[in-house]
């Protein structure tokens, strides 16, 4: 190699990017050429100047924000105060059981319908996420107005406050392509979800029947959660929580009464 041939190799040599053979050829030339030695040294000094430039670190708030957002999107955020982790684990056990031959509930004889599975899964999922409601309000009429604006239909939003069950808000969900109004309530540290699925039919497989105040409901126990389901006017309703059945049936009954009132208005 002469000085002209070595020129394209000077920078890759200084960057440590040459293979052993090329490196050896460059070094062989350098031992006998003072001009090229100076060239390599000059390049090295210039590179050193660039390398010692202050390198700004990311602001600590950015690091915290990014970490939080990743954990949140992984559903890995800090556990909420109603401790949903056991619920999620129980959900999985139940889903695995459904895949088997045997039913899960104390009364069930077959696998619950996919609609019921979907709603219970939504109940568990919404409990996990940071902001489970799109519109947060404890005021029933505000939430009802929000649904009317968003969906263009009247959604009955029962007020369970006298029973100590507080409204947290609402969101619009999708259940197998069907618009679903979702209401979230809280009693103490226990969540309760109320779903209204439009244009869906209830398949009662895997559920038990229970009559409460003269109306027949379907019930299913899934993953330590109780579910009360019924269908009315081409809509499916569900009340899901780990609260006792009596409370859920009372809530279901109240919702049906309020709907009757709303429809008369």
């Amino acid at each position, binding site marked *: 190699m002469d000085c002209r041939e070595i020129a394209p190799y000077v*920078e*890759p040599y200084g*960057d440590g*990017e040459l293979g052993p053979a090329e490196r050896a050829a460059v070094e062989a030339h350098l031992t006998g050429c003072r001009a090229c030695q100076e060239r390599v*040294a*000059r390049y090295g*000094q*210039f*590179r050193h*100047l*660039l*390398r010692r*430039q202050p*390198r*700004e*670190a*990311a*602001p600590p708030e*950015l*690091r915290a*924000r*990014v*970490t939080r*957002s*990743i*954990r949140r*999107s*992984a*559903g*890995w955020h800090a556990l909420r105060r109603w401790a949903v*982790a056991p619920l*999620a*684990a129980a959900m*999985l056990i139940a889903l695995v059981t459904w895949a088997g031959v045997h039913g899960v509930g104390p009364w069930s004889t077959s696998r619950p319908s996919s609609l019921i599975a979907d709603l219970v899964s939504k109940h568990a999922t919404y409990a*996990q996420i940071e902001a489970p409601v799109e519109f947060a309000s404890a005021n029933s009429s505000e939430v009802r107005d929000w649904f009317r604006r968003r969906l263009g239909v009247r959604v009955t939003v029962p007020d369970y406050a006298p029973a100590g069950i507080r409204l947290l808000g609402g969101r619009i969900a999708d259940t197998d392509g069907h618009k679903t109004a979702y209401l979230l309530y809280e009693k103490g540290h226990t969540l309760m979800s109320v779903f209204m699925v439009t244009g869906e039919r209830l398949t009662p497989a895997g559920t038990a029947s229970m009559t409460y105040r003269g109306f027949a409901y379907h019930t299913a126990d899934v993953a330590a959660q109780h579910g009360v389901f019924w269908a009315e006017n081409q809509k499916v309703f569900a009340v899901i929580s780990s609260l006792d059945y009596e409370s859920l049936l009372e809530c279901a009954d109240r919702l049906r009464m309020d709907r009757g009132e709303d429809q008369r208005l």
Partner: protein
Amino acid sequence: MIWPSVGRRAAEFEEVALVHLDALYRGALRLTRNRAQAEDLVQEALARAFRGFAQFRAGTNCRAWLFTILRNVFLNQLRRERETPHEVEFFEARVPDDLDDARPAAPTPEEEFLQTVVHGDVDRALQSLPEQFREAVVLCDIEGFSYREIAEALECPIGTVMSRLSRGRRLLRHALDGFARDRGYVKE
């Protein structure tokens, strides 16, 4: 189990990707030249990277992969903002071919030259470089990327990296010489 595996994925992502947060932030700062926008850009790029983390193969270069995403998010934002393809203008800026003629007849002796470089000069000189050269020089000489990593990050062949680097360094040196001459440290 679904939930714990998602948690593991987040933990793994934090371990392999977030170690590059500082470099990504600096990269974003150079692209946006605005701190708030740089933070948003990094956050969006990392969110996308996390969503695609399942496709990321262990053993491939994480840092280069993250820079590719950062750069693509930035370019997409730029296109949306301007509603016109901007990449050509942004990355393919023409550099005068007669650069060699524009260099001072007698290059400043290196030690003398290094004495003239004051705080902020390198940054200012880098800003004056066309983006395609600046990003190659920054990734190699400031961030310490290998040629292969730069090629992956910029999605171009290694030969292109080498020519951009060489030309970028010459432009940078030329700009720094210009600052020194402006201050009268170096004779014309």
